[in-house]
């Protein structure tokens, strides 16, 4: 039976107070949390070391100004303990990065929440913060799927954190404004929060979450169905990615794409003019810069099985390509080959690192 920590304040405030407690009692050297930065209400992730800095913290704000998985990579291995409040998909992304030696969980107290979904960047930066969330939270409290969140979030089936030390119960929490329940999943969590407040036995309200999950699953099915009709071979693919402008922002913000230089931007596939001229005589016409599809297919082959469906890629795409939905669908399929769930367990081997002699017997005759 897990322990839950219960507070008598609104969720956002409670989380801030927990962070404050951790800082003030030197349980951690710093906390990573979302916060409001500028007059116009910009948000960023801040690594904060003083409790007064927490006044502007908005740990539960349903936005993703950057993917915390990348940030945590740059902060770890940490010499001093830190606490990080991140979205479940960010945490899963971080776990995938750790498997690739891009960070470590040592000295990190991971705090996450049952996630109602993330509001797309273009909306969140245009809307003033007080207008941004009321509707959102109404629906989240009611266990509904908010309208204004990312498409991938609406279809996300992993909105419950998998490896967090502390899980903040948000989805379906009616009393979110007056109380907050922290599920303490690890001894680390229990010992660190000891003395903060009321502790009871208990866990997440599985009933509520299961109902919510069903809603997301239906949405996911629908998404996959609608994609199926679009992904009807080469033409469909060209229809989707044909307008890609080649900025590769999708890979740069991807928590899984950890390469310092993407192979598809490297010299590996450079062509000199004679090749283009030959292709031209063969085809009568060709696209420049080349390899638009190649990039996306190649990226899929490199990371799809680790895709956590955070949706950051779609958010930054200047051409409004539904990158995230496509990658999520394909990721689910490639991962399924190995019963692999990205971010489920840091001990789980990345499929491409290992093999089983008796698998895929049907392949290769």
């Amino acid at each position, binding site marked *: 039976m897990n322990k839950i920590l219960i507070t008598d304040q609104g969720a956002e405030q409670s989380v801030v107070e927990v962070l404050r407690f951790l800082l003030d009692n030197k349980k951690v050297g710093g906390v990573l949390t979302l916060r409001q930065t500028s007059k116009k209400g910009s948000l960023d992730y801040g690594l904060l070391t003083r409790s007064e800095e927490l006044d502007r913290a908005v740990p539960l704000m349903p936005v993703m100004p950057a993917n915390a998985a990348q940030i945590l990579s740059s902060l770890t291995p940490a010499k001093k303990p830190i606490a990080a409040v991140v979205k479940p998909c960010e945490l899963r992304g971080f776990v995938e990065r750790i498997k*690739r030696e891009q960070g470590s969980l040592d000295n990190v107290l991971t705090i996450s929440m049952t996630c109602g979904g993330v509001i797309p960047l273009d909306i969140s930066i245009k809307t003033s913060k007080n207008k941004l969330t009321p509707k959102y939270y109404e629906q989240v409290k009611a266990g509904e799927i908010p309208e204004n969140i990312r498409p991938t979030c609406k279809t996300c089936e992993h909105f419950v954190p998998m490896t967090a030390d502390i899980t903040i119960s948000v989805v379906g929490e009616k009393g979110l404004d007056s109380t907050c329940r922290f599920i303490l999943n690890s001894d680390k969590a229990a010992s660190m929060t000891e003395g903060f407040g009321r502790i009871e036995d208990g866990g997440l309200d599985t009933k509520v979450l299961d109902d919510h999950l069903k809603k997301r699953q239906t949405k996911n099915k629908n998404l996959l169905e609608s994609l199926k009709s679009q992904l009807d071979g080469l033409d469909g693919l060209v229809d989707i990615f044909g307008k890609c402008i080649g900025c590769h922002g999708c890979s740069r913000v991807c928590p899984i794409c950890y*390469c310092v230089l993407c192979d598809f931007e490297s010299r590996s596939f450079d062509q000199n003019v004679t090749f283009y001229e030959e292709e031209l005589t063969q085809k009568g016409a060709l696209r420049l810069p080349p390899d638009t599809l190649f990039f996306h297919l190649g990226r899929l082959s490199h*990371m799809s099985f680790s895709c956590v469906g955070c949706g950051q890629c779609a958010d930054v795409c200047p051409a409004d390509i539904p990158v995230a939905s496509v990658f999520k669908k394909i990721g689910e399929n490639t991962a399924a080959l190995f019963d692999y769930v990205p971010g489920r367990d840091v001990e789980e081997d990345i499929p491409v*690192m290992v093999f089983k002699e008796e698998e895929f017997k049907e392949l290769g005759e």
Partner: protein
Amino acid sequence: MKKVGVYICECGPNIADNVDIERILASVSSMEESEGIEIVAKPYKLLCSGEGQEYLKEEIETNQLTHLVIGACSPRDHNSTFINVCKQTRLNPYLYKLINIREHCAWIVHDKEKATDKAIQYIRGGIRRVLYQSELHEKKLDINPDVLVIGGGIAGIEAALCLAGPERRVFLVEKSDKLGGKAAEWGSLLPRQAGGVKAIQDKIGQTEANTGIQVITKTRVNNIIGFLGNFEAELCQVDDPETTTDLTVGAIVVATGFRLNEVSSLPEFKSADSDEVYTTLDVERMLKEKGQVALQTGEKPKSVALIFCAGREKVGYCSQICCSTTIKIARQIKEQNPETAVKCFIRDLCLPHKDDQAFYQQARDLGVEFVRVQTVKSDGVGVHYTCMDQSNGTEKFDMVILAPAMEPAEGTTELSEILGIPLHETGFYEEAHQTINPVATATDGIFVAGTARGPGGVTATLNQAQAVAGKIMVQLIPGEQIVPEVKVSEILEAFCMGCKTCLDVCHYGAIVFDEDKGISVVKEAVCRGCGNCVGSCPSGAIQLKHFTKPQLYQEVIEALR
């Protein structure tokens, strides 16, 4: 300006008859403009012939070729021939490429037209590739001919004796205080019983006397680094691990032998020390010391049960020699006192050697009784069994002798980690290839002989020891140098993210992690150049020399023209 020589071998009628060489040359020459290179394209009747090779040398020098492409036969036939030709000129052999237009074009399709089309594509691909190839320089390494033999049993002794010589020292490391291992404890050896034991004693004597062999007892291997021709070994004393000695050798022989399964630990063979229950090895010792099989009281047993395949289920494999060994013991008991009732409980019989069958027959003739059973258990000297006809039986004997299975020797796992060579699922050492390369291991320069690589008899063990010696002698010729593989992987520091994927897929331990830089690094001398790491690296940070992406990609492009 790049100047590519393209020479098409007629290979007598083999190529000329079914490929239009003129057309190839024409098409090839047309690349001069598109590629902006100079091309010398010529036919020749037989390039691999003496004159052919002279001709090539001549051509390379006089035309000052920067690259060479040959359209001829399979690389398996003459790649080395043409590489040697290059080596005698100023052309680096890695700027040359052989295209197999015989096996892959001339011989696979009757239609000369089509065969020629393919040959053209194939050769143009080769030309493009070769333009992207870069010089590689083989560096010769001095080798250390000395050998480290781990394990002083007969396998180790035999290997040492074969290898030691005026130009090659052998370090024979044994963890116990004396040489000989298990075989030295044997009371007698198959097939000719008496002679064997003496032969082993003699070998031990010779080993100790041999000035080329340095016997190091009460010592084990602590650490090994290096590669074929240049290993560094750290040894330490068994009872005082702090005292270490360093050795440098060119090759390593693993001859750590086996141990017998602890039958006492098996539930189906309960016994107390007071009981007259022995393993075959106990009996061998007994015979060696007392010269006969006797009870603890000193009396001769009136009835003896020998239980075969004791604990085979547990280990899951047949130990090959127990049948003949146990039959041997049964015979000896019967010979020594014919009135003793000797009963063998067998389930299967494994008698693979040429005189095993006769030996078994003689045992029967002597009156040794063989009972085929489905299951057999023992409780002290009481034996309970189920016959093939499902009938159960229980008998008491004066003495029970168990034939336990052979298992990997203690410390096998630890040593395999030190050596970085994998273990078979049975826990014995894994060979490079069980069938076709049975005494080599995954690592060049490390060999395995005797029961360390699996159950077997003295004969097999000696065979393997001699085989290992042979391999080492040809690979490490004193005074000669070796040329390590140059077509190896290399990791580009700027792009390596240190994700260690390559470490996981490399089965040769050829990639190590540089903790300071946080990147993977290839141990060139250990790398076999398979390219698995390259295929696994999403960052494109690894390149396999002579098989780089651009090089292969040139071929792809041409294949798609």
